């Protein structure tokens, strides 16, 4: 895990410094007098050689100090941690509705192949993967917030302030963020289920007189879910990417917005910290996916 994180940090550091933008100019914006730019570059340590900047950063990072944002002077760890709960909540909700809807929908579509339910499900998956989520978000705001006044058009209330208000504000962004993954998961569940239903052991189970319910839930679904779990694992990354857009549309104060602002503002310490956090979350997700395999199919073991 540590070598991966290290390589990622070197790669990001090098790439972001290749872009021809000076953070000091960006911070001072239209008020960038040449004297102020030089002074600010010095103050932020940006006038030192790149390798030296990197070594300073990594040596602090190893001691748990990710530094302070060069734009806002906020400690990086604080900046990420104060926004992480909002993104985690949104991501979890999006993934949850995507899994809870996709698995039954995909299963039913596979069982009733060619039926109107199947056509509907397949149609939804095509639409879901084709329509970009910013469009879905804007459409939901227009119809459900502005016209029908059913949901607030954006903003965030912490769970600790009001649970109903928090959930009320969560629904539209979660639908927006989860639509693409729901569509993909439905397709995967459907095709994986169709594949499994053709297997000999399903026919054997049926021949032995097991009920459809037993066969589907006990034999087919568990095996069909293995590829789906892999995909869901990968989707954690997709959800974080999607959060960049969704959080902007719904003014959701998560790390997606922080990442966008930091990238455009060339806030190197925040970008580095953000990438480390993402790399860490990928690694933890991979671990969780591996453990889920073993639970779904006991023949897979990690002795």
């Amino acid at each position, binding site marked *: 895990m540590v070598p991966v994180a290290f390589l990622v940090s070197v790669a990001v550091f090098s790439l972001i410094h290749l*872009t*021809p*933008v*000076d953070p000091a*100019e*960006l*911070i*001072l*914006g*239209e*008020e*960038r*007098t*040449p*004297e*102020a*730019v030089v*002074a600010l570059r*010095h*103050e932020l340590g940006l006038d030192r050689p790149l390798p030296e900047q990197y070594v300073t950063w990594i040596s602090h990072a190893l001691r748990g100090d990710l530094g*302070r944002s060069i*734009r*806002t*002077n*906020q400690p990086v760890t604080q*900046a990420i941690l*104060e*926004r992480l709960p*909002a993104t985690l909540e949104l991501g979890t909700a999006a993934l949850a509705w995507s899994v809870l809807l996709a698995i039954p929908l995909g299963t039913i579509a596979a069982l009733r192949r060619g039926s109107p339910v199947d*056509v*509907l499900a397949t*149609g939804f998956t095509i*639409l879901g993967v084709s329509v970009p989520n910013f469009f879905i978000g*804007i*459409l939901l*705001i*227009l*119809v459900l*917030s*502005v*016209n*029908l*006044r059913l949901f*607030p*058009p*954006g*903003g*965030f209330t912490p769970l600790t302030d009001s649970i109903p208000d928090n959930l009320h504000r969560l629904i539209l962004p979660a639908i927006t963020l989860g639509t693409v993954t729901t569509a993909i998961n439905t397709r995967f569940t459907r095709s994986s289920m169709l594949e499994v239903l053709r297997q000999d052991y399903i026919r054997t189970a049926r021949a032995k007189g097991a009920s459809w319910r037993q066969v589907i839930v006990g034999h087919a679904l568990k095996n069909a879910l293995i590829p789906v779990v892999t995909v869901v694992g990968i989707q954690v990354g997709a959800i974080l990417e999607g959060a960049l857009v969704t959080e*902007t*549309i*719904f*003014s959701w*104060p*998560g790390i997606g*917005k*922080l990442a966008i*602002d930091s990238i*455009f*503002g*060339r806030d190197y310490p925040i970008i580095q910290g953000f990438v480390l956090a993402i790399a860490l979350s990928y690694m933890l997700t991979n671990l969780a996916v591996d453990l889920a395999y073993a639970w779904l199919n006991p023949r897979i073991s990690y002795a």
Partner: protein
Amino acid sequence: MKRPAFALILGVFVVSAACSTGSGPTSAAATPKAGGTLKVALESELRTLDPLKSSQRVERQVYYNMYDSLVTIDTSLKIKPGLATSWTYTDPTTLQFVLRQGVKFHDGTDFNADAVKFNIDRILNAASSPRKSELASVKSVEVKDASTVIFHLKKQDAALLAQLVDRAGMILSPAAIQKAGADLGLNPIGAGTGPFVFVEWKRDDHLTLKKNPNYWVPGRPYLDEVIYRPITDSNAALAALRTGDIDVAGTNAIADKDIASIKSDSSLVYKDIPGLSFEGFEVNGGSGVFADKAKRQAVALALDRAQILKNVFFDLHTLSRGPIPPTSWAIDSSENLYTAVDINKAKSMATGFSFALKTPNTPGSIQEATLIKDQLSKAGITANIQTEEFGQILTEASAHKFDAALVGWSGRIDPDGNMYGWFHTGGGFNDGQYSNPQVDSLLEQARVASDQAARKPLYDQAQKILVEDVAYIFIGHGPAQEIASAKVHNFPLIADSIDRFAEVWKG
């Protein structure tokens, strides 16, 4: 199966569009009501709450409601007393302020001459602060007594008072500054004297101010609380305004294309006046294709500014005659040199050349650049659009590595702020390397001239020359806007486009 769903959505949209037409805003003059929370959308998140480090226009929206300046302005941009009740030049380089007495900072400490000196010294010692150049004429500050402070100047500076209206003149509690240390920009607890007190800032979510019960203006403010929310997506800001999730959208928070729908909504109010900014594009007169004045003039003559204002800015911006906006006392309204398009004259000046037009990668800027390209092609001039991230354009423009770049200016109260840094030889914002000894001399004279009457002809002359020279391609001046729910009353619309809420109440 998909069609009915789409038809339903479309139907809802059409019905709602049909329902939303109505008469314009009505504003009844009624008795002000105390209390309530005002929710305000900002075009973007702030970077810092420390005026010393501030470099964004949007930050001033919040500052003006929690900090007070030594002096302030009225709607006609005239300087009025603020934390200073009066001021006099005892000689041309000595400016004495008498300070308001009995004012306390939000942390309970006294506002006095020591606090003023502390704040000004802080600016003078901060090399990286944009404020330092604003107070370049100040040599030192002397405390005469608790309520009198003297500014000793290096040279006369007629624009100094106007600088002190804004962030350079905001006085924060020295105790609060010292207590907050490096976190002042994030958590300025108790630092202001203004109508509202800082409560909390959850970045990317909200910033809360509450009423200052001890504000030095009796009976103000009316509101109990102001909550700011950064809503960067204009569609989202518009939806939030429509649904009552916000009460006010700050200038620039709603895209120009959506203003028409606000004007036609009876539950909302839209008003505007010309702001202080100028927009158009910088031309690099120091090197490259635009070192030739005739080519700059050909571009200025071939541009159809009215068409750009109509198609890109939906007729909300005002045609620009030069760097001075129409709201300013220094406007030379007789200036008409490039206000109308003249293709033949443009061709006679120069034709058949091309240049790179650096364009920020936002839809509005790209649309503007495309229209410019199209207009110039009629005069045989080729504008090659180069879209880049705005930060990259700023970096390249400062290094003078460009032909032309769509970079504007948010504008300042005093004409000096819209001219000196931009068009004086070696000025801090003079990316285009414009240099004309006559303009330099006029701008310097205007800085030391005693009053407006003496300064006006100097600015008129300077404007004439730099417009004729095409030091910059002026297109328009952006508006200062009131975009609010009809429940919001007493909104002071001032050309600097900053929303001051001390007098605002909700009905």
